[in-house]
């Protein structure tokens, strides 16, 4: 018998950078939405091609993996969409791909999983992203929950209905009132509208040709869901579909949407070698589970865990991109960390309540926006992207700003302070 091979004595973890991200404009799900007659896989194809078009310095054969998330992996979101979209986008056949799912945090998980592969040395460059066409694939399509969930009282019947979990969260935190939620939602619409007008939203878009058998071809160049000018008064009168006299409405929650996102991640040395820009540097990430009935609280333990693992404090974080599945869930996060509802570091360009939340795609939208904000804010060193996840989870990714310039009097927590 041969002698066992000696283990590699050392493995260097490599730095992972977020190069660039793009997304399709988001649409409203349903027969009247802009993508009603557009396939989900085609949305991903447009995203992949846009990334390659924006980065001619990247030889396509250098892409080592294409990780694409979708919550409902059937039909045009099935068939191992990372692989099929790569082929359809014209990437060399030598480039592999896979599909991944963690509900709302699908794209976020595509990023963290693929990034971990880069850190480990398995990949140099990856494409990670997500898609959800909730018009073609309504939430819960084809699910078959195990009867033991209820028989064994593992979860409450409300756990699978996201709006009900948001109502549950209001129960848990009575201080978060419908009025606070509506005010946060109206502010999200206003911040988004201002960001569009300031040209902050739009540069990350890839236009998508949209077919309509009746109206002919069109071109999606802007998000469809936002309702600029929404006031708290408008929101106050909306129905509460999840409970009579409840608090969660279509106005203080993200809608049902269609869209796709994608980003390029790279080993930092490879990015330098190829001349790829560095948008953000990955610091760390965590996912955490919570009771499925209050899935919206997930970002709290996820963020605590990520901070603990990276040795950072919440005060080190200069920018927050928190997914707005529900206003209540963002407010629960802010309350936990003692951040004001209108703190300017949080969702400064608005959030999913305005722009929409095509489930598995949203994580990369948060990251792309954070990267763009980093470029404008050399005074900020760290930012986080965080989101709540169905079936009771949260995910948080901490990023470092490569444009950060240490200045006198900076209150940023420095390495030496650990």
């Amino acid at each position, binding site marked *: 018998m041969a002698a066992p091979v000696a283990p590699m004595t050392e493995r260097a973890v490599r730095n992972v950078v977020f190069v660039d991200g793009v997304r399709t404009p988001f649409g409203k799900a349903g027969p009247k939405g802009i993508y009603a007659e557009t396939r989900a896989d085609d949305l991903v194809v*447009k995203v992949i*091609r846009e990334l390659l078009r924006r980065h001619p310095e990247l030889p396509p054969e250098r892409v080592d993996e294409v990780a694409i998330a979708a919550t409902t992996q059937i039909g045009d979101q099935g068939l191992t969409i990372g692989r099929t979209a790569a082929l*359809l986008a014209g990437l060399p056949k030598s480039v592999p791909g896979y599909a991944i799912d963690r509900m709302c945090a699908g794209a976020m998980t595509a990023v963290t999983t693929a990034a971990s592969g880069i850190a480990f040395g398995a990949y140099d460059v990856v494409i990670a992203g997500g898609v959800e066409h909730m018009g073609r694939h309504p939430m819960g399509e084809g699910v078959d929950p195990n009867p033991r969930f209820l028989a064994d009282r593992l979860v409450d019947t409300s756990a699978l209905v996201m709006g009900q979990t948001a109502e549950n969260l209001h129960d848990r935190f009575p201080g978060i009132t419908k009025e606070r939620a509506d005010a946060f939602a109206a502010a999200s619409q206003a911040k988004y509208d201002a960001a569009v007008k300031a040209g902050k939203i739009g540069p990350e878009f890839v*236009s998508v*040709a949209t077919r309509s058998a009746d109206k*002919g071809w069109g071109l999606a160049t802007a998000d469809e869901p936002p309702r600029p000018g929404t006031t708290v008064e408008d929101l106050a009168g909306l129905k509460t579909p999840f409970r009579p006299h409840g608090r969660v409405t279509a106005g203080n929650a993200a809608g049902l949407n269609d869209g796709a996102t994608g980003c390029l991640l790279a080993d930092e040395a490879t990015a330098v070698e190829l001349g790829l820009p560095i948008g953000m540097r990955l610091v760390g990430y965590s996912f955490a589970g919570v009771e499925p009935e209050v899935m919206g609280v997930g970002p709290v333990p996820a963020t605590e865990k990520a901070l603990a693992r990276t040795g950072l404090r919440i005060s080190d974080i200069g920018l927050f991109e928190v997914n707005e599945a529900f206003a209540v869930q963002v407010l629960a996060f802010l309350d936990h960390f003692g951040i004001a509802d209108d703190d300017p570091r949080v969702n400064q360009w608005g959030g999913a309540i305005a722009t929409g939340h095509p489930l598995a795609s949203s994580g990369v939208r948060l990251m792309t926006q954070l990267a763009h904000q980093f470029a404008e804010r050399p005074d900020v060193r760290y930012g986080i992207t965080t989101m709540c996840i169905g079936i009771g989870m949260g995910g948080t990714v901490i990023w470092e700003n490569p444009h950060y310039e240490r200045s006198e009097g900076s209150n940023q927590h420095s390495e030496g302070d650990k």
Partner: protein
Amino acid sequence: MTTTLEQAKAAFPDEVVTKAVTRLVPVPGLAKPIALITIDNGFDHTRPSTFGPQSLVSLNAAFDEALAAEPAAIAVTGKPFVFAVGADLSGVEQVSAPEIAREIAQTGHDVFRRFTESSIPTFAFVNGAVMGGGLELALSCHYRTLVSNAAAIAFPEVFLGLFPGWGGTQLLPNLIGADAAVTVIIENALNQNKMLKPAQAAELGIVDVVFDSADYLEQSLAWLAKVVNGEITVSRPEVDRGEAWDAALARGRAFVEAKTHGASPGATKALELLELARKNDLDAGYAAETDGLAELLMTDELRAGLYSFNLVQKRARKPAGAPDKSLARPVTKVGIVGAGLMASQLALLFVRQLKVPVVLTDVDQARVDKGVGYVHGEIDKLQGRKRLSPDAANRLKALVSGSLDKAAFADADFVIEAVFEELSVKQQVFAEVEEHVSAECVLATNTSSLSITEMASKLSHPERVVGFHFFNPVAVLPLLEIVRGEQTDDATLATAFSVGKQLKKSSVLVKDAPAFVVNRLLTRFLGEVIRAVDEGTPFEVADKALDPLGLPMSPLILLQLVGPAVALHVAETMHHAFPDRFGVSENMKRFVAAGKTAVYTWDATGKPQVDPEVAALWQPGTSPLTAAELRDRAEGALAEEIRLMLDEGVVAEAQDIDLCLILGAGWPFWLGGITPYLDRAGVSERVTGKRFLAQGVASVPA
């Protein structure tokens, strides 16, 4: 435009309308939206969008709407995979009044020209198949993008006996030069309607730019924005209107002459219009196109071309008299008796299309090895030309084997023989095969003239025998005559049709009659030519007498291709069956006995002259015919023979005769095969007392 929707509906009530809808679309980089017109007939890509009168009214209205919006640009594109494939031909067939023909011609010009004369820039986003009128719409726009996966790009008009009459003859040469225009409009059309590939279309300058299919429309719109903004300037080469134009037209004329001998008015008119286009005067050019189209649409010649189109597109896909498909048995292994050239070609065809084991048998190992070697060699050649991948070539080669023992056929479902054309030999071969195969195994024969019924008569299972007659070259000619013997059962016949379809052939059901369809008619026809020569008509006169039919090759060249020995053998068979109408020429016997294979020899310049040895052995009579006399006689003979064949029930209808001649003998599409010509020329009535086709079928309705 003068046509109203009501008039358009009246002109062609059954039109599948291609609706044009205008949508204002924001495009990044442009301050104003563009007007994007989508043309879509509401069906999927298997029924491409076409333009009939109502479609043109719709496009015109869409253009009005676009203009009214004062957009940054006007663009037109199609439904997925299809831009537009031209005029609705079924509408043209219904036109019986000259004023409607003129209206169709004029309306196309009126609507398309608005895109040309628009002060707002116009773009065609050619997102898929584009032919004829679709291509003319694209050419009418100021700029064109093309999708990388466009399935078909062509002007098929001349192929159909028409010419591109909605601006094509004027716009194309002024865009890409007369030489390239001759290639597209004349040469490709007359070469079996050859299509351009997207890269070729770009190379010729028909489109300005090609974009990948994955995000074609998005990139086209981005390109449009850059053109409108002046970031991109589209430069096109200067067109040479002098000598190059002369040379191109001369080339076109020579090509048309060689292919049609002046027998296709559409091709001739196309040349005339291309000459006129030199002046680049759209008023004069379009007026001439309209006049020409109005005239041509009302000719029987054009209707014959459309008739052919329908035969090939529709009738060939649903063979008349074929039994229910569900009766067909699967074919998982094929046996071929014989390993000669014909057998080897069949083996190659079967293995490539069916991808099942194919076993060749012959009487000695050397022949078997040669046959298998031929197939393997051809597969290697296909691999060399990148028509087959290495894996596919390995797969096919492994499927082809040879054997001396017909026991190798034991598990075959379909055995075809291609042995010597002698009834007793074939009977014996089938008897031997029957000892090994199952009771259901189909026994097919590639005989060109022998009786299927007699061939089957001595078998235990005569119901499994079927005629399966290919045409040379097997890989090229699409026709398959499937012959039903007296005892052939439906399952056998259905299997034969199923195999024919899998082989990508167009099958026609034929009764078991001597020489079936194509060979019977060609033999009768050739017999008349030979008889005229025997009577003293000079070879050259006899050979050119039939030029007005526009046949793919003259009779004596056909004789050379078929092989005089084979032709003589068939003539003898036919003489035996029908001694009154099919003669056997003593001169031909001498010609064959002398081992001659051709009447002509060619000098160094390629000019043919009658081989002096042939002239010497031929003993002509003293009553030569003029070309006109011979043509009358040959046409009369064809009409007589076709009438008899229809009366005997050799095929279901005259349409099947024409289909056979178009697909099996390469007779011109624009002639309608043969029966429309014979009807039109009055031959059918003169010889048989009636037409083959009712007025309105392959002719202008009364």
